[in-house]
């Protein structure tokens, strides 16, 4: 136990000396805060109109019901439409209104813009429409981004621990660990414990910012505990694959899309492709987090996803422990 604690103490001292702990703990939380502020503006997005100042105020008022309206000189309207975002122009020609579109808008959006013009120019109503909400306080975008931020927090914990190993290899400090009584298992524990504590703390902070207190934190802590081997695994992959900073960043560049991108991809793919990702512990971790943060029912339960995350990560660590020990010259 003593060698493990010594190595953890040494890592904490280094991290505090370089202000690294501050960066590690604060930066992801600041990013989460920025995202939390940003999300409502994305969700409040409606249509966009560039309207000539000759169009009647009544029409402008009606357009406000559908989205953002910018009123400008008629000559400016086309210039505004030509910008990169999707904006429809409205000018008055003679007695009637003209809707100006670029032609590159999505077909669905063109239909909606045309529908808006029909609503404004045609008085007769054909239907009576009422809207009702089931009352869930959910936002798909917010839920996805919360999970992205949590996985990022977990990854940062791993990577910084991985960097410590790379630093030791680069400066040959690893050789002094190799001749010490420390075994590969103890080394793995030491790196894993610190990485998991940092990752867990940042993840809980991120969750509080992104999702508030409305989620089940007992379950989150269980996922974080059962993800500790996943966090350790990532740190070891970085540490064992790279001997210097350039190599470490190259490995991280590959790991990031594999760790965060692949599970996210399953969200947008037909369910029949799910089995392609079963070998990835991070897929199960994503599913476990999903069962906490997604308000809609999940096909895979919380406990099975969390336990498989733990078991698969453990399997990979055991399978590669010899390779890791050899790479790091440990016993």
């Amino acid at each position, binding site marked *: 136990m003593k060698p493990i604690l010594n190595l953890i103490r040494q890592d904490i001292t280094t991290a505090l000396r370089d202000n*690294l702990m501050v*960066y590690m703990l604060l930066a992801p939380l600041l*990013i989460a805060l920025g995202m939390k502020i940003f999300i409502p503006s*994305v*969700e409040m*997005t*409606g*249509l966009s109109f560039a309207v000539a100042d000759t169009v009647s105020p009544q029409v402008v008022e009606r357009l406000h*019901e*559908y*989205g953002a309206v910018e009123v400008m000189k008629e000559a400016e309207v086309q210039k505004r439409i*030509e910008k*990169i*975002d999707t*904006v429809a122009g409205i000018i008055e*020609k003679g007695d*009637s209104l003209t*809707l*100006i*579109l*670029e*032609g*590159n808008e999505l077909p669905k959006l063109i239909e*909606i813009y*045309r*529908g808006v*013009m*029909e*609503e*404004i*120019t045609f008085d007769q109503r*054909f*239907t*009576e*429409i*009422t*809207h*009702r*909400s*089931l*009352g*869930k*306080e*959910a936002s*798909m975008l917010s839920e996805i981004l919360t999970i992205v931020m949590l996985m*990022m927090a977990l990854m*940062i914990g791993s990577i910084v621990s991985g*960097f410590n190993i790379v630093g030791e290899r680069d400066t040959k400090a690893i050789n002094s660990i190799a001749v010490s009584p420390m075994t590969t298992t103890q080394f793995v524990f030491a790196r894993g414990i610190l990485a998991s504590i940092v990752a867990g703390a940042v993840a809980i902070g991120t969750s509080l910012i992104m999702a508030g207190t409305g989620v089940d934190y007992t379950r989150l802590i269980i996922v974080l505990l059962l993800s500790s081997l996943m966090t350790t695994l990532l740190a070891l992959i970085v540490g064992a694959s*790279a001997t210097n*900073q*350039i190599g*470490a*960043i190259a*490995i991280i560049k*590959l790991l990031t899309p594999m760790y965060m991108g692949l599970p996210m*991809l399953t969200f*947008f793919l037909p369910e029949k492709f799910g089995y392609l990702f079963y070998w990835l512990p991070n897929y199960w971790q994503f599913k476990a987090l999903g069962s906490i943060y*997604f*308000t*809609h029912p999940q096909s895979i339960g919380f406990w099975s996803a969390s336990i498989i995350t733990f078991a698969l990560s453990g399997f990979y660590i055991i399978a590669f422990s010899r390779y890791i020990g050899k790479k790091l010259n440990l016993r």
Partner: protein
Amino acid sequence: MTKGLMNLFKKDLVIAFRNALFWVLIVTLILMIVTIKFLIPDTQEEEGYRYFYDKSESKLLERILVQSGLEEKYILKSSEEVEAAVEDSPQSVGIIFEGSIEKPRFAILHQQEVNAYQKKMIDVSIEGLMASLAGVDRSRGYEIQYLRPIAEPVSGKLTAIPSLLAFEVLILGFMFVAVFMFQEKEEGSIRAYRISPSSTAIYILSKTLVFVVIGLVYGLSLVMLTMGFTVNYLIIGLIIVLGSILYSFLGAIVAVFFNNISEWFVIGTGLLMLNMSPVLSHLYPTFSPRIVTMMPSYSILFIFNETMFPTGKSITPWIISLSIMTAIAYIICYMLVDRKLMKEGH
């Protein structure tokens, strides 16, 4: 100067490839190609499902919708079924029809509270449907003018390529220029460079050139292996070159404020995430706040899109603004590298 630049460029290129970067790029390239070719569906999926229940006795609307191509799985048999379906799928909307075709009433069910604009857009679609069923032509009250011919729909598979170029290929310089600098600081080779006759400009340009070459090979391989020879490679090559230069300069600008990769990593990742915010404008085409449009990736994404899937829109102004941005970034990069990296004591 050219000889000095080429010597340093060769040295940096060798360092880049000696450190697994080559294999990482090959594996990532394979992953991207497999994802585009085999995983992303060809047709654009609907954003959400519309579950429908015709509560009327005649079931006329249900029959009309089935005839017009609505899949039967979206037609449900009771209000409770609609509610359960909406409860299960966050992106879905439940539509319950009552009354008659002449006097229709609709109850729209959402899983959560949606904004007023979205409600109005759903109303617009339903009003349009019922007006056309009543045989009323509402399009006479206004005219529609397209600045260019309506663009052909793009295959869902291929729409990912511009984003991959912007957020995977071009950012290589941003990440690796920083790492090169930290590595040189740690190894002490930056000290040797300071007393050598080479200039700051050569130092910056040699690193930039490495990532221009890597970006070109990496990016063009991705486009060629997914889109074949159907695109204008000259423009795509030009944007990869400009983008790689810009991001390499930006990478150096950020890196001079840090001492090692661990310090830089969280901030660097945060900036790269911010750089990815234009993806939201890609997903929500009317979403364009200033903070997003200011990102260089916003116009780069548009130029790639327009070059690969042309709609007739001019990209020249955006290429010019990208060039100006790159020139400004170089000036700032030069000043910072010269002051913070090339002077002793740092």
